[in-house]
């Protein structure tokens, strides 16, 4: 009896560094930002309650729509393509060949660096006249676009850049692949199944839990794309790379309209939440759980 109580007290004690931090730095700010979103809160000194007027204003704000569209565009292409690329690379790197570990290292390398340095590198790679990408295209006799200077090609350019960094997700899939029991493949071979059949009937179904996890995390991550756009394009040309968080940053930390930016943040939160719920709700249709068999 006494021991159980002691365990409970220590349980609370040891979890408290996180719990207190959670209350102060997450729970409270989340509520506080909802409150601020109802104010005209402009630094330094304007604080006035205006009800839902920020939300109304956002509804008619063409830049908000542009930002939401750009972010959705980026997410819809970058997330599925990223997942497909990671799975393909993971399948290739899962082959039992001599020296495969060196190849794994190479494929993973782009995912190791992030942020400003990568953005600067790709700014150079995508340079229309002296960049590597258009040089490679010219070897194939293709005249490359002007990428980041063209509103049509700026977003695809950033998507290609994100695919180069698929190595991070690839590792997750590699881990997933290595957990698939070898006996399943052996049994299928005895039954005369070919590789194609094995992939669709064994590999892919057993990877769905991994796909599910990486889908949720990738959607959340892709809605927060910021550094690439900030460094490489500043949102241009013609706002074609004005992504949601970049717009939020401009409103909150360049024109210091904190109320407006908070309302933007809450809309982002709701959008991400709804998407996550949709993924969760549909998951029973396509995610395979071994526990169901038991």
């Amino acid at each position, binding site marked *: 009896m006494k021991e159980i109580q002691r*365990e*409970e007290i*220590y349980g*609370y004690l*040891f*979890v408290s*560094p*996180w719990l*207190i*931090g959670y209350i*102060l*730095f*997450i729970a*409270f*700010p*989340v509520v*506080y*930002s909802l409150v*601020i979103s109802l104010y005209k809160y402009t630094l330094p000194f304007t604080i006035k309650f205006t009800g839902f007027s920020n939300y109304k204003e956002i509804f008619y704000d063409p830049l908000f729509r542009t930002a939401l569209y750009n972010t959705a565009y980026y997410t819809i292409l970058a997330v599925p393509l990223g997942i497909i690329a990671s799975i393909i*690379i993971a399948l*290739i790197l899962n*082959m039992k*060949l001599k020296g495969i570990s060196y*190849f794994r290292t*190479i*494929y993973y*390398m*782009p995912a*190791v660096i*992030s*942020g*400003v*340095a*990568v953005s*600067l*590198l790709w700014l*150079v*790679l995508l*340079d229309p006249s*002296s960049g*590597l990408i258009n040089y490679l295209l010219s070897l194939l006799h293709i005249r490359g676009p002007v990428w980041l200077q063209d509103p049509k090609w700026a977003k695809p350019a950033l998507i290609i850049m994100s695919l180069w960094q698929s*190595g991070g997700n690839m590792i997750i899939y590699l*881990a997933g692949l*290595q*957990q698939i029991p070898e006996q399943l493949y052996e049994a299928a071979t005895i039954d005369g199944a070919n590789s194609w059949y094995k992939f669709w009937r064994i590999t892919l179904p057993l990877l769905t*839990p*991994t796909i599910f*996890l990486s889908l949720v*995390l990738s959607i*959340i991550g892709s*809605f927060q794309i910021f550094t690439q756009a900030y460094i490489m394009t500043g949102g241009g040309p013609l706002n074609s790379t004005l992504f949601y*968080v970049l717009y939020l940053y401009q409103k909150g930390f360049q024109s210091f309209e*904190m109320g407006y930016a908070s309302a933007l*943040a*809450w809309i982002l*939160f709701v959008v*991400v*939440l709804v998407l996550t719920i949709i993924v969760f709700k549909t998951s029973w249709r396509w995610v395979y*759980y071994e*526990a169901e068999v038991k």
Partner: protein
Amino acid sequence: MKQKSSSKWQGMLLLTLKYIVLIIGAILFLLPFLFMLSMSLTDSHELFQIPFRLIPRSLNWLNYKEAWTENYPFNLFLKNTIFVTGIFILGQVTVCSLVAYSFARLRWRGRNLLFTVLLSTLMLPAQVVIIPQFIYFSKLGWVNTYYPLLIPWIFGRGAFPIFLLRQFYMTIPLDLDEAAKIDGATYFQIYYKILLPLLKPALGVVAINGFMFQWNNFFEPLIYINEKAKFTLALGLRMFQAGEFGTYWNFLMADSVLVALPCFIIFFLFQKYLVQGTIIGGGLKG
């Protein structure tokens, strides 16, 4: 007999094909780095020459020295970044391992509920909390200090490292705790003396991930740090790009290489742990 040798040839052909695919992929992934390296070694007046050359006419190693020291004090930025990253790793490893211990091995009411709350923070975009945080950190006088980069991320955030460490704790048999308890060990001693040493590889994974995150962190430093003397490397690179020397792409690439270098070194040294950590972290499913 004839059939056997033809299938052997097929096997050889398939193997060759596999290696060709692997090598082409590797080249595609590596080329940008080679380009970066090549540009960082190019002479200033040879920049952006057409036709394109992957290997510059002469390798100018002095670029590195000039880029790092001449225009902006990158040594100072390096010192700042090492400081912030170091404190961050230390704090995160300490706090998360203790919290994960409580979640994994102690029984208390509300534990499962709080664990769900913890995991749900993974889905919260950081931007939702950044504005209120900015408002009250400004009031606390924390602008131009490193507290906003450290305190909320060490406490409160960190769902992923806590989750990862909890998974690792679960792989250690509970008998160890029971035996220690019988010997009169306190809960803190069990955590500190018995479990923590067994957790070293996992702590390593958390430390490496923490390093990669904070070393490259850009959003928070951009918002909170505007005093040049307190800039981190990421901010320094940005200032270089946006400033009057921003057209010297060879220097910018040289600095980018140097900023990225520690990430590569750490990755090469510890890649075994990273993969292992991901495998156990993969248990997040379900």
